């Protein structure tokens, strides 16, 4: 299935602003992040700590709604979903 990945700020600098990933059916948010990490060592280093846990400051949205990385990484994605990855907000 087709997932659109958007990245912002420091993660945009590593991943580019937009990319489309094709994943197997029933892939989860976690699967997607691991795929990105495997493809881009710089992303792996920026997003995961030495034990392979997602770092605190990685924020995620699925279809423009924030998800909780401590609970929702196992959430299955759907065809056409949009996942956004970004660091802590700093507007204003």
């Amino acid at each position, binding site marked *: 299935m087709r997932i659109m990945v*958007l990245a*912002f*700020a*420091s993660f*945009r600098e590593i991943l580019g602003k937009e990319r489309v990933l094709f994943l197997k059916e029933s892939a989860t948010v976690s699967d997607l992040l691991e795929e990105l990490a495997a493809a881009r060592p710089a992303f792996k*280093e*920026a997003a995961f700590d030495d034990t392979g846990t997602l770092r605190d*400051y990685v924020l995620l*949205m699925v279809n*423009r709604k924030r998800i909780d990385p401590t609970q929702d990484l196992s959430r299955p994605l759907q065809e056409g979903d949009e996942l*956004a990855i*970004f*660091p*802590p*907000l*700093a*507007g*204003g």
Partner: protein
Amino acid sequence: MIQITETEISLDEMIKRARSKDAGAMVTFLGTVRDDGMERIEVEAFREAALMELEAIQEEAMSRFHLIAAEVVHRTGTLAVGESILAIVCSAAHREEAFSGCRYIIEELKKRAPLWKKELGEKCERWVGQTST
């Protein structure tokens, strides 16, 4: 009116739009690029998500504080020291409401709107609010 724009913010236009014969008070917040040792900043937005969030925040402020008007404009792109990053204008019958509404919008915007700032200096650059990776 809610706006995310690459062009200079016109506070004047925002104030005109927020004026009303029912308003006795108008409170404006202007966030400007402070000289923190850098030369300029870059502001980035997740545009669609930020507009949605700012609209939600505006509606909450309007109804909680009985605002007559609430205007929010956030700049994106490259800004020099002294330029306006953000302007918020709230009008209300009385000053208490206008102050509270304006304060509410800036605090919620900082917490909820997907926007980022990068400081650019001669020798270094740094994403604001992020520990170095």
